């Protein structure tokens, strides 16, 4: 749209409100508020809020998804979930992914960001290239890695050809290994995002600080440890938040690589794959929605606690 067109229309139709707007808001303003934010609110309410509320409602029913739900079972679904070892496994896998993401990806990404923050040739190209996996869709990432990691795939072939036959593995189906395979793929896909985030955070740190430290005789690593890392704190804490929430909601990659049946035997099922397998494929809608509510509640509690105790001082500092 061009600015001039819009200008003509907008200017002619509306009379000027020059009077001071102190005493409440007039009907004209109300109308504007409604007209501008109404569509977004309507969409958000219908396709986000309403389904979430309905998930909570369906969660109280035993329901196959046909006709209106009638078989009210109260908290039965939730009791079943809490006693279901398959759900416990899924929860445990989510927990592992949360912790491993933080302790593996965090330090690796900070290290890489420190390295790439130094002056070097081709810096911007490097930044673009490490970001490529983040842009590729989950389905492609999953399909490609499943091919690479199958028993007669390229990864094992490379290992054998360099004489490391002992390391060749059944990466996807071995239950004691699969969670690490999943972490490898997740790290590959999301490390670029973390590095870019940390690099952006580092650019906000005034250069004078490290210059002053250098004058005081601090080594490179002392400067990083004492100055860069503490000042990068807020960025790291935000990243950790996004990482935790992402790990709790993990679905696409697991479902694509391990599918609906294999994930639980391989040890990579998550709450979200459990929900979809139960709710959609087994047509157990009521139960699936109860799982969704549990997943949502866990995410919400962790998010609120995190914001209350970890992110709070950051936002206070900014305000």
């Amino acid at each position: 749209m061009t600015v001039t067109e819009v200008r003509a229309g907008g200017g002619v139709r509306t009379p000027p409100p020059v009077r001071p707007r102190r005493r409440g808001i007039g009907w004209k303003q109300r109308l504007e508020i409604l007209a501008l934010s109404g569509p977004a609110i309507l969409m958000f309410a219908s396709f986000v809020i309403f389904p979430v509320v309905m998930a909570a409602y369906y969660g109280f029913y035993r329901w196959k998804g046909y006709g209106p739900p009638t078989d009210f079972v109260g908290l039965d679904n939730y009791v079943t979930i809490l006693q279901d070892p398959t759900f416990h496994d899924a929860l445990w896998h989510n927990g592992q992914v949360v912790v491993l993401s933080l302790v593996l990806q965090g330090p690796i990404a900070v290290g890489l960001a420190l390295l790439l923050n130094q002056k070097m040739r081709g810096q911007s190209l490097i930044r673009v290239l490490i970001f490529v996996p983040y842009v590729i869709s989950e389905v492609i990432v999953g399909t490609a890695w499943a091919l690479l990691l199958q028993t007669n795939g390229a990864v094992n072939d490379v290992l054998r050809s360099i004489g490391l036959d002992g390391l060749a593995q059944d990466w996807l189906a071995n239950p004691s290994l699969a969670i690490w395979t999943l972490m490898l793929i997740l790290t590959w896909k999301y490390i670029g995002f973390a590095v870019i985030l940390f690099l952006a955070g580092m650019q906000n740190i005034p250069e004078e600080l490290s210059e002053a430290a250098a004058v005081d005789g601090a080594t490179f690593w002392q400067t990083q440890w004492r100055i860069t890392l503490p000042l990068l704190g807020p960025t790291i804490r935000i990243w950790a938040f996004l990482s935790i929430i992402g790990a709790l909601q993990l679905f696409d990659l697991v479902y694509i690589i391990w599918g609906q049946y294999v994930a639980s035997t391989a040890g990579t099922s998550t709450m979200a794959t459990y929900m979809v397998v139960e709710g959609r494929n087994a047509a157990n809608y009521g139960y699936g929605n109860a799982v969704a509510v549990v997943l949502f509640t866990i995410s919400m509690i962790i998010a609120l606690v995190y914001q209350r105790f970890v992110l709070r001082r950051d936002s206070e500092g900014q305000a």
Partner: protein
Amino acid sequence: MRHSRYFVALVLIGLMLGPVFYIVVGGFRTNSQITTDPAGLPDPWVFSNYTNVLTGEVFWRQVGNSTIVALTTTIGVVVLGVMASYVLARYRFKGRGALYALFAAGLMFPATVAITPLYILVKNLGLVNTLPGVILPQIAFGLPTTIIILVPFLRAIPREIEEAAAIDRCSRLGFFWRMVLPLSVPGLITTGILAFVNSWNSYLLPLFILNDQDGFTLPLGVQAFASQYSVDTAKVLAFTSLSMIPALVFFSLFERRIVGGLTGAVKG
């Protein structure tokens, strides 16, 4: 120190691009080449895998579907998002804080949680197996990110400009059209790109809504192709690498904006 820096960077790039390289180059091999030497290079180079995909209609239909879905989603998210953000940023009314908090909390409602009721809702609207059935929920789920990014952006427009506009007999809506939209173009581009990439890569929602192969978007298409031709690895690699191209081209065109948008979103 200097050389180790470049060495680590090279290893890193190798690790990040290795799998991508494997997919692309693997498409130029035959299945027997892949079976006998899974990690080798094409010998000889075969082009039929790629030409078969490119001359078939399946791939192009899915590219078309994905394009329609992504473009419409992007327009919807940006238009509705900027209108609501303007209200949240520059009007004073009761419940504004609550409304903003509600949208912000929307970041915590991923489509995963609401997916089965969402499916039922779309079914009741008669939109199962249609592209609008994917587009409408995607617009709704794209709004929180857009609003979170745009509200600080619009709030940063100095009040003096608005007052000057008012003295020039320009209404609030006129101000929105004439000043706010032009000034917020960078923010609109950032949020638009995020919406486009998210929509292009979206998997769970199309998986539930689109059951008919004709309506498949590219991610569903890749998965269907991979399971249909599971024994024909070379063909799958060709299909997969071709379906990577649009997102990569889009990304390389707008790389600075995407990176800027992500970091801006986190800071805001």
